[in-house]
């Protein structure tokens, strides 16, 4: 079985985010990027399937800053192959990214495509369905449990309000992973360094994505600071505040 896991980099949220001059998006030039946490879960789930039976895990990513390290890390964790798509926009939205990924993945003969259900850098959390459409595969997203048996994947999908549903999906399929069955594994630095010496990353040109119809961001702003909260410790204080605000 072949499992393809697209990996995406997102801004590291411990850093202060800066906006571009137009105020329409982030200024990526000084941003520190890291692997999207849900993609990490998708990769972990793929590796769990591989370790539970047999599967070939291929990590795919659009070329960009620090992407090599991310792909080597995936190899160090246990992925069998890493593919880097060159000549595409690493910060593209899901519509464009799905096209790029579909071009790359369509020839791979994937039985399963596991993508992170969302990313800090996207606006819709729709990568799995859009990619599935381009690949002409069935899809289920927001999945927290996955089991593969004879060409069928049994998945648990999470709905709001704590409702769970179980689906059987015919393979090949695209699954949007919400959480892997266990915490994504750590890649020891010495293993990553060893992999850098011994393994190589395959490169693939992005190809033509055609016209992408998508939404555009007209304005992006930092959230406005509100007054904040005050912790009150006595009824008297509450009364005082209410008086101050003119409520009573």
């Amino acid at each position, binding site marked *: 079985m072949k499992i393809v896991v697209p990996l995406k980099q997102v801004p590291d949220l*411990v850093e202060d985010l800066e906006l571009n001059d137009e105020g329409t998006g982030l200024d990526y030039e000084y941003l520190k990027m890291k692997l999207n946490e849900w993609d990490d879960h998708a990769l972990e789930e793929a590796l769990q399937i591989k370790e539970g039976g047999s599967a070939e895990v291929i990590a795919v990513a659009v070329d960009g800053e620090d992407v090599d390290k991310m792909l080597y890390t995936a190899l160090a964790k246990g992925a069998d192959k890493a593919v880097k798509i060159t000549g595409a926009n690493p910060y593209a939205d899901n519509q464009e990214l799905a096209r790029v990924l579909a071009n790359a993945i369509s020839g791979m003969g994937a039985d399963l495509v596991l993508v992170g259900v969302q990313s800090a850098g996207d606006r819709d959390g729709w990568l799995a369905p859009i990619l599935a459409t381009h690949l002409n595969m069935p899809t289920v997203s927001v999945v927290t449990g996955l089991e593969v048996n004879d060409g069928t994947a049994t998945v648990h999908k999470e709905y709001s309000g704590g409702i769970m549903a179980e689906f059987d999906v015919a393979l090949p399929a695209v699954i949007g992973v919400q959480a892997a069955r266990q*915490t994504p594994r750590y890649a*020891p630095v010495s293993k990553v*360094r060893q992999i850098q010496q011994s393994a190589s990353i395959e490169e693939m040109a992005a190809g033509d994505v055609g016209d992408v119809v998508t939404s555009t961001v007209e304005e992006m702003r930092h959230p406005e600071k509100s007054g904040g909260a005050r912790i009150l410790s006595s009824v008297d204080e509450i009364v005082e505040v209410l008086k101050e605000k003119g409520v009573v």
Partner: protein
Amino acid sequence: MLSFEEQMAFIFLVIICGIIAAGGFYRIYKIVSSGREDYRFDNIVGRFVKALVDVGLQRPIFKARPLASTFHAMIFFGFSFYILVNVNDILEAYVDGWTTIGGGPVANAFNLFSDIFSVFVLVGMIFFLIRRFIGKPKVFEFNKNVLLNPAVQQGGIKRDSLIVGIFILIHVGSRWLGTAFHLVEHGHSDLSMPTASLVASMFSGMSPEAVETGIHVTWWLAMGLIVVFLPYFPYSKHIHLMIAPINLAFERRTPRGMMDKETNPNEPGAKVLTDLPWKQVLDSYACIMCTRCHEVCPAHNSGTPLSPSALVINKRYYINQEGSEIVAGHEKPLLETAIKEDAVWSCTTCMACVEVCPVGNEPMADILQIRRRMVFEAQMPDELAEVLRNLDEQGNSFGESARKRTRWTKGLDIELKDPTKEPVKYLWYVGDFASYNQNCQDTTRKVARVLHAAGVDFGIVMKGEKSAGNDVRRAGEEGLFEALAEDNIQLLEKCQFEEIITTDPHTFNAIKNEYPAMGGHYKVHHYSTFLLDLIKNGQIELKKKVNARVTYHDPCYLGRYNGVFDAPRELMKLCGVELVEMPRNKSNSFCCGAGGGRIWMKDHDDMTQRPSENRIEEAMSLGDIKYFTVACPKDMTMYSDAVKTSGNEGKLEVMDIIDYVLEAMDLPTEAENKEEESAEA
């Protein structure tokens, strides 16, 4: 003299038992040498001379338990002298007319020593048997959650102790009685053998035949027994009397704070026994199972499943039970045979077990090797993985932006120099905790104020600094440690400075002991010694006395690891405080529980009391102590918490040594400074 038949029988016994024992010793050699490479052969003569002198003076054993050590010394001196006694007794058995009774001054001296030492050994041995079997000290017990070899659980150590104890009593006791029979045979007492003469007086009424029988029986019980005992040696803990001196001779000669470099990068650390360096396999044969190591272990004392003692004992029992399988390469993982996974993560790397061991064992080194392999196989607590990821991505353990490293400087009315941009004499390597931890930032600012007021030319490398990696390495993440050290050294190489100062003993240890092997050679000072020098050369003027009765906690990485015990104490006294020592001080200091990456992990569910709370209780037991003094940022946060959680808030306050210096310097406050400036203007 023995009869001819007896003489032949003894030779036959020596050959048979000798062959079996030789097989046992060869087995030890095979197993020990199947361990990984460990170069301990430099200055081999010097090593053995030092070991023999140390053993001869019983130096290592007197590091703890003075009473038991005294009785041990009695047995040791007696047993050592018994080598001569045994040679004499063989001559007596084979050479017609050989006797030391009624001889010259040399013979009399020999007689006197054998008489006294016989009693020493008997008294010593009886003490140990009474202690173990009647006294039953709690310290010989293991926490219930500790992994123990089934044979140990079934009382294997006790049985071994009993067998060895009885052997020694019979061996020495028989020889002693034998001498008494000889005296009866000679028909007189001998002043050079006072105790044997006393016993002889009780035998005086015996017939010559009975005396002769007595001589033969006691000879066989003394000499025959030791030969019969030989094959048991390689399987008994008693072999420590041969292996311990060898083990001490092969002790670590590299700095304590420098971990061994990995010799097998493809399979780093240890999964099975023979993945350990051979010296650490040898450790298990030197171990006498005295449990001194877990007596001082903060993990053991806080109820977690780690006992360094059990680790070494388990190794030994596993070797005893499956030695041939080990040599054949069919080994079981150490995590099944020697130590549990959660025990591996309970170690604070405080070095107390290594420090106290009388035979030169390093249980902590085993744990570090096991961690190294576990991390390489991504087997570790989730919270540790999270911190290591942060360290990899941001260079600090807090998961904060690298840019926020200098946030502590806010509110500081001093312009700090950046050695990447301008030359400074001293580069202050601030370290993660002093920079990011809110409990520590105030202390860090005080250090800056003191250095500034003393006119020290210093700077910090701002956001370019990364964790020095001391505890990353000890958590087992060798690759990440190397990456951090390389980045830091690369940065330091770009800076213009002469020497490094730091408040953090962990950082101090890494730069002093670990960085040279990575190509970074720097002169580094802990602020305790640095400030003391500033006071002594007059750069810091102490104007007033701090009036307080205080105690001081030695940080592991400053004290045990690097031998800095006196500087902080001298500094505190110069500031005027009255220093009262806790019972566990200096090299016997008790760890706060934070080291080796423990501060990043959750407490074990079985923990009965945090080591830091135990330490605070120790300080409280001194009575009327105002301040608990620390010289390590991690200690500041650990003990500030422990004072609260142990219910001592308001009774005891945690102070950094810098607090005393600042108070004794009696600097004008910032507000006063400003007034002064405006007045000048």
